[in-house]
């Protein structure tokens, strides 16, 4: 038995993203004496945050009303110019604003790096007395005898590949709390366990995801229009009948953040979200903007796309889910940071009185009730059919119908369809014999790059000598099932080239280059039989994103 140290808190928050930090700030605003800590697996706050981002300041206005006067990086670039392009091969058509519902206009929004916003939020939280521990992942959930969550165990450091202690072994410790807030973001690995253990998804649709892959570019000053934001749909995913789209935001310091989201319910197993993104950059309308510029950072992260009907129950004995760990993304707006923040605040508003009443370990139903009657609910219900419409009717007709449905809801207060259903992304994957391989163009090294070159721009790192953090339930499945039936999709969907099939014939095997992992969580979602489980590696490892 390892002797583990313990520390006691009123509230332990797992994850230093917008949701977790807003929750911690709100707690201290309510009750300055509460003992609150935030655990973050990245080497520093922001190191693992990857977003667009165009941020709706609604939640921030409520949390820290004078944020514009506090040197907040969000204030630098208001959205000035908003475009929605439908891409065809080699051309684009701008959708007139008149046919888009008003809330799609990004009026009053700002574009910035969400990681930098989190760095700023962390400084606000620390000033209020929140203890923030970057480099310490919550690796395990701890339960009391009654089965309530009573805290988390941080990850062990210094285990070798076989899991034996090295000379620098440092055991994880137990952080015990009255309540634990799971703010791990999309597909949190502990959130996934809590959702299963407490059957939190019993009344909702399965969660579905998109994989967002992003680059940050310094572009030529003459091409840069601070505050201009562009969203695209259509090409190149239209060619494989998949769904998704691109974004390109002109941000501060002459940079553009550009990325491409591929819905992970794609059927053709030959689709490579990474190559789709590289191809998208070659579209003349996109290329024209970045040509002559320089890529300075790369990364990837999944985003929830299930919408309101996929939101699970939020409170369970001893804990709550906030932010994308539950999934409050407004899909047509591709925005989840404001709802993440708001959900963290609502959780805090239920947690603080509960602690004041000396309670612990119960399920905070007040939080769930408050959330389901908050503006998050209003906003998400308005758009809840957008994704399923597109999934059902395809990118063309679906987008029109989804638009019509949103119009109807925003103007008339009712939609044209009832809440629609989802199917899990893993099960959507089709058999390889039903599809044709896709011939993607070779990278030119100027606009498009090969995957491994790009991974170096995520500054990701993992110890060579530690247990692999990508666990296979059955080691035979990759070759016997995935390769045989689905042509080994993990070799293509992973945006960091972690999965590689080596050898031929009977010698074929899957090599897992876990060191390249950028913590996007796609493999945990898209593996056809759910054979891969993502767990936290050693603290402080993974990407080191600068302004993502």
């Amino acid at each position, binding site marked *: 038995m390892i002797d583990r*140290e313990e*520390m006691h808190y009123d509230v332990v928050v797992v994850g230093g993203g917008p949701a977790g930090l807003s929750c911690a700030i709100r707690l201290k605003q309510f009750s300055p004496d509460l003992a609150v800590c935030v655990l973050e697996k990245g*080497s*520093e706050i*922001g*190191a693992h945050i990857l977003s667009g981002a165009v941020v709706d300041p609604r939640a921030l206005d409520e949390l820290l009303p004078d944020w514009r006067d506090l040197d907040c990086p969000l204030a630098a670039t208001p959205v000035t110019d908003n475009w929605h392009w439908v891409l065809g091969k080699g051309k684009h058509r701008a959708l007139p604003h008149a046919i888009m519902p008003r809330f799609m206009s990004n009026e009053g929004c700002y574009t910035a*790096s969400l*990681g*930098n916003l989190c*760095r700023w939020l962390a400084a606000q939280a620390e000033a209020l007395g929140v*203890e923030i*521990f970057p480099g*310490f992942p919550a690796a395990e959930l701890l339960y009391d005898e009654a089965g309530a969550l009573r805290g988390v165990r*941080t990850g062990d*450091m*210094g285990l070798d590949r076989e899991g034996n202690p090295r*000379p*620098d072994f*440092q055991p994880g*410790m137990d*952080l015990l709390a009255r309540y634990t807030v799971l703010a791990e973001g999309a597909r949190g690995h502990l959130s996934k366990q809590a959702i299963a253990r407490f059957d939190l998804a019993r009344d909702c649709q399965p969660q579905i995801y998109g994989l967002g892959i992003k680059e940050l570019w*310094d572009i030529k000053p003459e091409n840069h229009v601070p505050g201009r934001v562009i969203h695209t749909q259509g090409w190149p995913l239209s060619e494989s009948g998949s769904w998704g789209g691109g974004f390109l935001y002109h941000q501060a*310091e*002459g940079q553009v953040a550009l990325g491409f989201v591929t819905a992970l319910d794609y059927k053709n197993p030959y689709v490579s979200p990474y190559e789709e993104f590289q191809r998208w950059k070659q579209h003349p309308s996109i290329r024209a903007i970045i040509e002559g510029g320089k890529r*300075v950072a790369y990364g990837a992260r999944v985003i929830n796309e299930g919408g309101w009907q996929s939101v699970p129950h939020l409170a369970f004995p001893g804990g709550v889910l906030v932010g994308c760990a539950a999934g409050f993304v407004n899909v047509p707006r591709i925005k989840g940071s404001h709802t993440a923040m708001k959900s963290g605040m609502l959780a805090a508003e239920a947690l603080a009185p509960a602690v004041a009443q000396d309670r612990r370990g119960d399920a905070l139903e007040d939080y769930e009730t408050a959330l389901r009657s908050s503006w998050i609910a209003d906003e998400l219900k308005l758009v809840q059919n957008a994704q399923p419409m597109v999934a059902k009717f395809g990118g063309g007709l679906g987008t029109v119908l989804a638009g019509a449905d949103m119009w109807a809801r925003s103007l008339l207060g009712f939609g044209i369809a009832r809440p629609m259903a989802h199917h899990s992304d893993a099960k959507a994957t089709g058999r390889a014999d039903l599809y044709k391989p896709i011939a993607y163009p070779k990278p030119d090294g100027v606009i498009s790059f090969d995957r491994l070159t790009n991974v*170096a*721009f995520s*500054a*990701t*790192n993992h110890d060579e000598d530690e247990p692999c953090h990508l666990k296979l339930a059955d080691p035979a499945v990759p070759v016997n099932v995935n390769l045989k039936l689905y042509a080994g999709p993990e070799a293509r969907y992973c945006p960091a080239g972690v999965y590689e099939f080596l050898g031929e014939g009977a010698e074929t095997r899957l090599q897992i280059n876990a060191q390249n992992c950028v913590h996007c969580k796609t493999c945990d979602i898209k593996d056809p039989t759910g054979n891969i489980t993502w767990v936290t590696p050693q*603290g402080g490892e993974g990407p*080191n994103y*600068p*302004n993502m």
Partner: protein
Amino acid sequence: MKVLVGVKRVIDYNVRPRVKADGSGVDLANVKMSMNPFDEIAVEEAVRLKEKGVASEIVVVSVGPAKAVDTLRTALAMGADRGILVQTDEPVEPLAVAKLFHAIAQEEAPGLVILGKQAIDDDSNQTGQMLAALWGRGQGTFASAVAIEGDAVTVTREVDGGLETLKLSLPAVVTTDLRLNEPRFASLPNIMKARSKPVATKAPADFGVDITPRLKTLSVAEPAPRKAGVKVESVDALVEKLKELGVA
């Protein structure tokens, strides 16, 4: 015996440095910064000396911006006792740092000063040597083993041809090489404790040191991208190619 250790806040070794568009330097805005890896080794060595009962107190010193206090806290979490931040936003050159360490060494009278052999941002590899000269003490650079015996330290050095062993009388200056030790991970309770350990903030002027740079950076540029190689089919083709390039 008191041990003085230098720690510098540098761009993290995992990060690809990005040259600013105007060529004036490396962009550090929101870039992950960490303790210079060689300094981590220096701190670890000092902590091991303390655990062995050889060192009685470990003082860590950083010269740099206000944020360098994070670097000092990391060293305190690893086991150092107190910190001194010599705060400046100016670029600091090895000579200025050596002068500051010299002034601090005179004040603190350590038995041993351990520094990294170089900082991975400017790779100067000069500070330890300059400090030893200013202070008039022996130096054991590129140490891969350090042993204290009485009032002397035996330093095994990594030199081009192999290993060299020196014996220096104390006080002395040692600079660390990669193989000296494997730095420990700081535990959460130790990080907490480090938050209440004392850190004194000083200015270079407090030590009467003028840190005005002696060097002027004209421009900073990224290395030219390496040209892709060519594959040749046979030995003959190789020879042919080499002739073509004028190397054979």
